[in-house]
């Protein structure tokens, strides 16, 4: 059974600081996703990481994937209040079917991030 662990589960930080959220998963996977969720809202896609060593950046967020260590990180640079949200990583449990039709995602419990002025 695929398990996805995030840490920390709760993070309070000040604006301007840097921090990293970690996502470990238990079995081989070819896809790792990062999502953001604001209170009472749905999931917003941030990054899809498809290969070992993949690195993607958008604004103050950067995600990386190490498939050998089964580890992904989400790094926040010079945090601002607007980045306050819950961040989830999710892993595909099976390879995507050829020709389409992917399987379900296994999510971590989420990291509740509060950025204070």
């Amino acid at each position, binding site marked *: 059974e695929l398990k996805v662990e995030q840490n920390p589960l709760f993070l309070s930080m000040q604006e301007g600081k840097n921090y990293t959220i970690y996502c470990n998963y238990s079995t081989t996977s070819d896809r790792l996703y990062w999502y953001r969720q604001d209170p009472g809202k749905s999931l917003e896609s941030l990054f899809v990481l498809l290969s070992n060593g993949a690195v993607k950046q958008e604004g103050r967020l950067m995600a990386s994937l190490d498939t050998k260590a089964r580890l992904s990180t989400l790094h926040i640079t010079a945090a601002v209040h607007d980045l306050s949200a819950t961040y989830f990583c*999710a892993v595909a449990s099976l390879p995507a079917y050829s020709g*389409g039709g992917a399987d379900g995602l296994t999510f971590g419990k989420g990291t509740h991030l509060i950025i204070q002025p």
Partner: protein
Amino acid sequence: DAGVTQSPTHLIKTRGQQVTLRCSPISGHKSVSWYQQVLGQGPQFIFQYYEKEERGRGNFPDRFSARQFPNYSSELNVNALLLGDSALYLCASSFPPSYGYTFGSGTRLTVV
């Protein structure tokens, strides 16, 4: 373009009742997945449909069922509701072989 549309947005049901949730994927997307998100937890995979066939099922009891229609919209049915079924139910659409998933705003189900 319209995103993933889910209805209703909220509903309250009594234990033992049945409920049907609906999802319309992004135009052109042929795959729909359903997730249950209990408050304070990450979403849990329930079903995935592609081209009207079930392609994946999570660890949920047989009280949960779903189907996909020729226009690729989908319904999730839950029978004999329990208090523990109270959650946000999310629908995600995708366009294989693209790997991205777009989530709808969800249906918040409260069972009393």
